[in-house]
C-alpha cells in the first residue's frame, strides 16, 4: 500500500477540520485523565494498607522497653533471635504532654530518630523536613495535634516546659510514635521522675495472625530481663484502624471512578465514530480520485488517531497531575504515607483509550471503505429523510418562538447521536446530583459525630477524677455558665466503660445528668431515652450483642450492675462491633455508683461568637478547667469533601465536552440549513437559541433519568459506607434531597448541556451566511 497519499489525506484532514481535531484531542485528554484518576483511585482503594506496609517496611511489632531494666546491648541482641527478619532501634523514647495555643493535648509518645528512613518503619515525610537541630519535632500526620508546620508546642510536663517547633509531618504505617525528635533531644523532654525508655521495631518471618504476633512478642519478652518490656503494639491494630477509614471512603471513590470510566468510554466512542461519519463525504471524494478501501481506512484511522494519540499521552500526564493532590488527600485516610498512580495504570489507560479510538473508528471507516464513492458522499450529507419530521410538525404547533421549537425538534433527526448525547448528559448529571447528596450526607454524618451544630463548646475539669455532681465545683461551673452571656443550655456527663455479658470489649457509655436529647445525637430508630432504666445504643452495640430495640440488658459499671431497656438506636460510629450507650445519670446508679462529671456539653445561643464565648468561659473558670470549641468536621470529612469536589468537576467537564462534540458534529452536518435560516432572517441570537435548544430535550430526559439514578446510587453508597463503618444510617443523613433541591439539581443536566452547546452555537451564529449556503 502506498503510504504517502494516506498520510497526505490524513494530515490534510487534521489541518482542515481544526475544530473537530481539537475536540478529539480535548475529549481524549480529559477522558484519559479522568480514567487515569479513576483507575488510580480504584487501584489505591484496593488493599492500600498492605501495599503501604510493604513499601514502608512496616513494623510487625513495636515494643517499648524500660532502659533501666534492659541495656541497649541487650536490646540489640534481640535482633539476632530466630524468627526476627528485620529490626531497627533502640530509639530513645518518652511520653509527654504537649500543649498548643493554650490547649493541652492528650499524652504523646515522642521517639528520637536520626532520620526518617530505616530498615523497619520507613517513615514517609509528607510535609516539611526532618529535625536538623534541637527544639524541632516532626509530628505523625494521622494524629490529633496541630495542623501546620511552623507552629510551636510546649512540653508541659518536662522540666522548664521546653518549646518545640513543628518542622514537618510524617506517616508511620504502623503508628510507631506521635512525634519524632533527634535522639539527643529526648532526654531534655523526659518528665521528671519518668524512667528512660527505648523503642524497638521488629519484622518477623511469621506475623500474619494475632496468634503469630503474640508468639513473636513472647519470644522478645523472654529474651530481655523480666519487667523490661513496657509496651507492645501489633501491626494488626494499625491495619484494623486504617481499614476502618479506608473502607468508608472506598464506596464513593469506586462509584465516582466507575462513572468516570464508563462516561469516558462512551464519549470517546461517540466522538470518534461521529468524526468518521462526519467525514464520509470526504471519504467519497478520496475514493472517487482512486483511494483504495484500505487506504481510505488507514487515512481515517490516522486522521482520528493522531490527535487522539496526543490527547491520550497528555491525558495520562494530566491524570497523574490531578491524581497527585487527590492521592495525597486519600493516603492519610487509608493510613499510609503516600499513594501514587501505579505504573500499570499509566500504561494501560492510554493504551486502552487509544485502542478504543482505533476500534470505534475502524467500524465506520471499514463501512465507508466498502461504500461506493457516491454512496459515501450521500451518506455523509444530510440525515436520512423522514427522521424527525413528526417532531418538527409537532413542534411547529407549539406556542414557542420558532427558533426554539425548531431546536427542540432537531434531535429527533439523529436518534442514535441523541441517545449518546443524552447518556453523556445523564452521566454528568448523575455525578453532580450524587456529589451534592453525598456531600450533604457527609456533612450530616460529620455533625452527627461531632455534634458541632448542637454542642458548640465543651468544658470540664483538668486532670483525672472529675467532679462530684452537686458539689461545690459543680456549682461553680454552673454559676459560670449562667453568668457568661450566650449560654443556651448545658448538660453534665460522665464517660465510663460498661461491661456487658457476652462482650469481650467494654462498651463506651455516656451518662448525662439532665436532659441531653438536644446534644445532636441522630436517631436511626426508636426514641431518645426518658426516665430511669432506658438507654440508647449505637449500631455496633446491637450488632455485637444481637439485641434489638425493646430488649433489656444487664450492664455492669464498676461493682454495680443495672438492667436497662434499649429504646433507641443512635448514629455513633465507633468502629465495627464497638458498642456505645447513652443513658441517664440515674440509670447507671448516679453519684452513689461512683459517677463523676467529666465534661459539660454547652449549647451557645445563635449569633454568639463561639470562640469569644469559649475564651470568656475559660477565663471565668480558670486553670483548673479545660474549655474547647467543638471542631466542625474531622480530617476524614474534609478529605472526602475535597475528593468529591474534584471528581465531580472532572466528570462534569467530560460530560460537557461530550455534548460540545455532538453539537459540533450536528452543526457541521446542518451548516447548509443554518445558512438558509440566516438567509431568511434568523439573527445570531436566534441561531444560538436554536442550537442550544438542540440539547434541551435530551437534557430534560437525561435529568429525568439522572435524578432517580443518582438518588439510588446515593442510597447504595451511603449504606455501603455505613456498613463499612459498622453503623446504621439515620434518616437525617440519608434523606438529604429536598423536593425543591431536586428541581434545582435537575438543572445541572441543562447547565452541562447548555455549556457544552454554547461554543458550537456561537460558531454557528458567527458563520458567514454565504459560506454556509455554499456548504454541501
Amino acid at each position: 500500500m502506498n503510504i504517502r497519499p494516506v498520510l497526505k489525506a490524513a494530515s490534510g484532514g487534521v489541518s482542515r477540520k481544526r475544530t473537530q481535531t481539537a475536540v478529539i484531542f480535548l475529549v481524549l485528554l480529559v477522558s484519559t485523565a479522568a480514567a487515569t484518576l479513576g483507575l488510580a483511585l480504584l487501584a489505591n482503594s484496593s488493599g492500600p494498607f498492605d501495599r503501604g506496609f510493604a513499601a514502608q517496611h512496616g513494623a510487625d511489632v513495636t515494643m517499648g522497653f524500660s532502659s533501666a531494666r534492659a541495656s541497649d546491648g541487650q536490646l540489640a541482641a534481640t535482633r539476632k533471635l530466630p524468627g526476627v527478619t528485620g529490626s531497627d532501634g533502640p530509639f530513645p523514647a518518652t511520653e509527654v504532654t504537649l500543649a498548643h495555643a493554650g490547649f493541652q493535648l492528650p499524652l504523646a509518645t515522642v521517639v528520637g530518630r536520626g532520620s526518617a528512613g530505616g530498615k523497619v518503619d520507613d517513615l514517609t515525610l509528607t510535609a516539611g523536613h526532618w529535625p536538623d537541630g534541637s527544639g524541632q519535632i516532626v509530628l505523625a500526620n494521622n494524629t490529633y495535634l496541630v495542623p501546620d508546620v511552623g507552629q510551636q508546642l510546649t512540653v508541659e510536663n518536662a522540666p522548664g516546659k521546653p518549646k518545640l517547633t513543628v518542622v514537618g509531618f510524617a506517616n508511620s504505617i504502623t503508628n510507631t510514635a506521635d512525634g519524632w525528635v533527634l535522639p539527643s533531644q529526648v532526654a531534655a523532654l523526659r518528665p521528671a521522675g519518668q524512667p528512660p525508655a527505648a523503642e524497638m521495631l521488629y519484622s518477623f518471618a511469621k506475623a500474619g495472625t494475632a496468634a503469630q504476633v503474640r508468639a513473636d512478642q513472647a519470644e522478645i519478652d523472654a529474651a530481655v530481663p523480666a519487667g523490661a518490656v513496657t509496651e507492645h503494639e501489633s501491626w494488626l491494630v494499625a491495619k484494623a484502624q486504617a481499614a476502618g477509614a479506608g473502607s468508608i471512603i472506598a464506596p464513593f471513590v469506586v462509584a465516582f471512578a466507575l462513572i468516570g470510566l464508563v462516561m469516558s468510554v462512551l464519549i470517546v466512542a461517540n466522538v470518534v465514530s461521529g468524526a468518521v461519519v462526519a467525514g464520509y463525504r470526504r471519504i467519497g471524494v478520496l475514493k472517487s480520485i482512486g483511494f483504495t478501501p484500505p487506504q481510505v481506512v488507514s487515512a481515517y484511522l490516522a486522521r482520528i488517531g493522531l490527535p487522539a494519540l496526543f490527547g491520550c499521552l497528555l491525558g495520562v500526564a494530566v491524570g497523574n497531575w490531578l491524581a497527585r493532590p487527590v492521592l495525597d488527600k486519600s493516603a492519610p485516610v487509608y493510613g499510609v504515607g503516600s499513594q501514587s498512580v501505579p505504573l500499570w495504570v499509566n500504561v494501560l489507560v492510554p493504551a486502552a483509550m487509544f485502542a478504543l479510538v482505533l476500534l470505534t473508528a475502524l467500524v465506520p471507516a471499514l463501512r465507508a471503505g466498502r461504500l461506493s464513492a457516491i454512496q459515501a458522499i450521500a451518506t455523509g450529507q444530510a440525515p436520512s429523510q423522514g427522521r424527525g419530521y413528526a417532531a418538527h410538525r409537532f413542534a411547529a404547533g407549539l406556542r414557542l418562538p420558532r427558533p426554539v421549537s425548531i431546536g427542540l425538534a432537531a434531535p429527533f433527526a439523529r436518534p442514535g447521536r441523541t441517545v449518546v448525547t443524552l447518556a453523556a448528559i445523564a452521566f454528568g448529571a448523575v455525578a453532580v446530583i450524587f456529589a451534592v447528596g453525598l456531600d450533604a450526607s457527609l456533612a450530616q454524618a460529620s455533625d452527627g459525630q461531632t455534634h458541632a451544630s448542637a454542642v458548640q463548646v465543651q468544658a470540664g475539669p483538668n486532670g483525672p477524677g472529675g467532679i462530684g455532681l452537686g458539689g461545690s465545683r459543680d456549682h461553680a461551673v454552673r454559676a459560670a455558665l449562667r453568668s457568661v452571656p450566650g449560654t443556651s443550655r448545658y448538660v453534665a456527663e460522665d464517660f465510663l466503660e460498661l461491661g456487658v455479658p457476652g462482650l469481650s470489649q467494654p462498651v463506651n457509655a455516656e451518662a448525662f445528668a439532665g436532659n441531653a436529647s438536644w446534644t445532636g445525637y441522630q436517631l436511626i430508630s426508636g426514641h431518645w431515652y426518658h426516665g430511669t432504666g432506658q438507654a440508647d445504643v449505637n449500631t455496633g452495640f446491637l450488632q455485637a450483642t444481637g439485641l434489638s430495640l425493646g430488649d433489656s440488658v444487664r450492664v455492669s459499671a464498676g461493682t454495680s450492675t443495672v438492667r436497662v431497656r434499649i429504646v433507641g438506636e443512635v448514629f455513633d460510629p465507633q468502629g465495627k462491633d464497638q458498642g456505645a450507650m447513652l443513658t441517664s445519670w440515674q440509670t447507671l446508679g448516679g453519684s452513689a455508683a461512683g459517677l463523676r462529671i467529666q465534661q459539660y456539653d454547652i449549647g451557645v445561643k445563635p449569633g454568639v461568637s463561639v470562640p469569644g464565648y469559649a475564651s470568656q468561659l475559660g477565663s471565668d473558670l480558670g486553670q483548673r478547667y479545660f474549655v474547647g470549641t467543638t471542631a466542625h468536621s474531622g480530617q476524614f470529612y474534609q478529605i472526602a469533601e475535597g475528593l468529591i469536589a474534584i471528581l465531580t468537576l472532572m466528570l462534569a467537564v467530560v460530560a460537557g465536552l461530550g455534548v460540545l462534540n455532538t453539537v459540533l458534529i450536528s452543526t457541521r452536518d446542518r451548516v447548509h440549513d443554518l445558512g438558509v435560516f440566516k438567509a431568511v432572517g434568523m439573527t445570531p441570537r436566534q441561531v444560538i437559541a436554536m442550537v442550544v435548544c438542540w440539547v434541551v430535550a435530551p437534557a430534560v430526559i437525561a435529568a429525568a433519568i439522572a435524578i432517580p439514578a443518582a438518588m439510588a446510587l446515593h442510597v447504595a453508597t451511603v449504606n455501603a459506607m455505613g456498613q463499612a463503618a459498622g453503623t446504621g444510617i439515620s434518616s437525617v443523613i440519608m434523606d438529604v434531597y429536598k423536593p425543591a433541591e431536586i428541581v434545582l439539581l435537575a438543572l445541572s443536566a441543562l447547565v452541562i448541556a447548555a455549556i457544552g452547546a454554547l461554543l458550537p452555537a456561537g460558531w454557528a451564529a458567527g458563520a458567514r451566511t454565504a459560506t454556509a449556503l455554499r456548504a454541501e
Partner: protein
Amino acid sequence: MDADALIQLSGVTKRYDSSGQPAVDNVSLQIGAGESVAVMGPSGSGKSTLLNVIAGLDRPTSGTVTVAGERIDKLSETGVAKFRRRKVGMIFQFFNLLDDLTVADNVLLPAQLAGLSRGQARQRAGSLLDRLGLAEHRQAYPARLSGGQRQRVAIARALVNSPELLLADEPTGALDTTTGEEIGALLAELNAAGQTMVLVTHNPDLAARYASRTVQLVDGRVTSDVVAAVPR
C-alpha cells in the same frame, strides 16, 4: 446618488483572498424601485457574489451598499438579519428549502422570525400558496415535490414578508425548460405588479424576456448596463 434608487452600490469590491483577483471589482450601480434587472456573465464573473452583497449575505471588502435607504455594509449581523427579514426575499438555484419542515412551515418561517402574529402569518402564507398553486401541498415535505413546485415554494417563502426587493440567483438553473419558463413568467408577473427584482442568470433568453435591464459582469467588473429598448 439617486434619491429614488432602491439599491445603490458605490465602488463595491469584494475579495475572498487578499492577494487574488477580486470577485467583484469596483462596481457602482443604481437600481430603482420597480425595476427588473438581470445580472449576466460567465461563470466566476462575480454575479452571485454581487447578489449576496446586495442581500447582506456577504460583506464588501470596500465600497458602500445602500438598500431601501439602509447602509447594509455597516450593519451588525443582527441588523443585517433583521434587514433581510423586512426588505429582501431570496430565491436560489437549488431552492434551499428546509427538508424537515412542511411546505407551509417553510413559507411561514420568515414571517415567524419577523414576529408576525400566528394568524397573520398563516393567512399570508395561505394566500401565497393559493396564488402559486400549492394549496394542496401545504402539508407535504419538499422532497416529495417537483423542481418547479419547490421553486414556487421558495418564491412563496421569499414573498411572505412582502419584501421591497426580490433577489433571484439562477432561479431556473435547476429546472427543465418548460418549468423554467413557468417560473420566469411568474417572476415577470410579480414584477409587473410592482415588485423590484434582481435576477442572476446565465440564460440570455430569460434575461431578454423577463428583465427590463441587463447588467453584464466580466471578471467582477460591469462591462455593460443596458435598458431594454422597448418596454415589455
